[in-house]
């Protein structure tokens, strides 16, 4: 700063040259920042366009609902798509009550004590555990200790540990967006804290809460590394492609994309991988749109705020 002040005090000619080059640099860097931001959008559009071109031909009703094939071309991903949703739903059933409960506790009850710090630190630590490391933990617990073998429920419980922190944070942020006047008004009317949480705070926070949950759900849907050694990389061939037994092996679509390419047993492995990648990408887009639309609708309906 001091240098800038001295510069203004120097002779006029020098000063105007200096000012021009400073303005030029400013314009140039503004351009650089715009370019950096645009490059990311270009990249994303490129990815989406590329996957559509590569994978569109693979999509068919048979591909989306049929069984995978062991060695011949023409296998489908029906059970895998089902398993992805099934494990996602199991994971949400396990994760949501715990994550929302902990989020409510930290945001509404715990002042600023040691316990709060401990929970917060544990959550941050859990959040940085790499997916594959969590997968090995799931392998140790559910496969090697409980002897469940590869199961949908083992995969879902592993994903639960992995996603608890994200959903707790979503809850905390959603609750934080509720104005304190709501709390004061409710308590002022004689409601207990729990009544206030249940009947005032959670309903007012439902919009951002839903948006956050659906976005995290999108990430759970595409999770791979944590599932290879917990839910397994094969599907069970039962009476139907849709196997609701949580103790059966349950390869998801994302795992299938990887294992098909890795094993390369079927002649159309690349085609199946392209189709799977496209379905996964479309699902990401769907989750993102749903998150926004539903979140906004709920906010309007339950709070009257636009």
């Amino acid at each position, binding site marked *: 700063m001091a240098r800038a002040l001295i510069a203004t005090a120097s002779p006029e000619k020098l000063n105007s040259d200096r000012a021009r080059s400073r*303005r030029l640099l400013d314009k140039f860097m503004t351009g650089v*920042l715009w370019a950096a931001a645009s490059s990311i959008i270009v990249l994303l559009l490129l990815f989406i366009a590329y996957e559509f071109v590569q994978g569109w031909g693979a999509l068919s009703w048979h591909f989306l609902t049929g069984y995978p094939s062991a060695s011949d071309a023409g296998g489908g991903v029906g059970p895998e798509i089902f398993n992805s949703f099934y494990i996602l739903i199991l994971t949400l059933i396990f994760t949501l009550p*715990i994550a929302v409960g902990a989020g409510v506790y930290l945001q509404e009850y715990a002042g600023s004590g040691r316990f709060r710090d401990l929970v917060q630190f544990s959550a941050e630590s859990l959040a*940085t555990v790499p*997916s594959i490391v969590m997968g090995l933990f799931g392998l140790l617990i559910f496969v090697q200790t409980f002897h469940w073998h590869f199961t949908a429920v083992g995969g879902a419980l592993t994903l639960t540990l992995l996603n608890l922190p994200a959903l707790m944070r979503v809850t905390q942020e959603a609750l934080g967006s509720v104005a304190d006047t709501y709390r004061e008004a409710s308590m002022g009317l004689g409601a*207990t804290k729990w009544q206030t949480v249940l009947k005032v705070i959670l309903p007012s926070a439902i919009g951002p809460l839903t948006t956050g949950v659906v976005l995290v759900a999108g990430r759970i849907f595409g999770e791979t*590394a944590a599932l290879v050694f917990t839910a397994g990389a094969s599907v069970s061939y039962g009476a139907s492609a849709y196997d609701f037994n949580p103790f059966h092996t349950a390869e998801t679509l994302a795992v299938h994309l990887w294992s098909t390419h890795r094993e390369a047993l079927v002649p159309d492995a690349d085609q199946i991988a392209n189709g799977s990648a496209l379905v996964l990408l479309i699902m990401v887009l769907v989750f993102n749109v749903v998150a926004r639309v539903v979140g906004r609708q709920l906010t309007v309906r339950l709070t009257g705020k636009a």
Partner: protein
Amino acid sequence: MVGVRANKAHRDERIALVFLILCSVIFVVGIGLVLGYLAWNGTKLFFQDHYSLLTFLFSPDWDSLNNKFGALPFIAGSLLATGFAIVVGGPLGVAVGVFFSELAPKRVADVMKPAIEVLVGIPSVVYGWLGLTLLVPLIAKVFKVEGDGLLAGGIVLSIMILPTVISLSEDALKVVPNSLREGSAALGATRWETISRVLVPAASSGLAVGIILGIARAIGETLAVQLVLGNASVVPSSFLKPAAALTSEIILDMGDAPDGSPLQHALFSMALLLLLISMVLIVLIHYALRKRA
């Protein structure tokens, strides 16, 4: 009547509190179990199989058939790919964070923010597949090599850490008080001078947190790198030659490792190493945040 209802409310309140505390305790127990189980199984290689820790860490010889578990190739691969990602993706991410915080008109931000959210949502395995089918052939053509290797892995990781670095950089800059912007402008500084000499230094610890979380994301990334690294168990001599990372080797070898074998123990040791690196990064973040406070 009123008394009964008040009693019920009080009882509900107590039950609710116990439930909420239990939910919170699960986080502490969860990370405790993960750390405990991996510490136990990740040290069996040294205590049960009496393999030397130093050989594990510093030997470049990995030959699981002959019980040689030098993890240096994978440690080097992980560190180099992550380093590349930070060098490329770090500045780019910070730049876009600056853009969102200081430049972006609201309408532009409204379009771009959801786009970045989509980037976060794309599964790791899809990034890997894109890298394998789009990037690797490109590298092969440009450099006249096979294509898979640290360069491909580093580029894929650079893209994958972007959303993390962008959103944390933006947050870090947004909390810088406006008085600093106004003061700088009043002294005649251009916007770039304000950004580079006032805002970025003021937000440095927050920016550091973004970069550290980017490192954490990159070093733990598995499928995206496994698909493009080329999976060669040698210390990489060039960014254009096939390599392997801790994560990619674990996912490739674990399926074939018999329960209780030294190979499985070695893979758990590698997972433990990854876990320890993540924990160190978390502590670093706390240090950076405390410095700010």
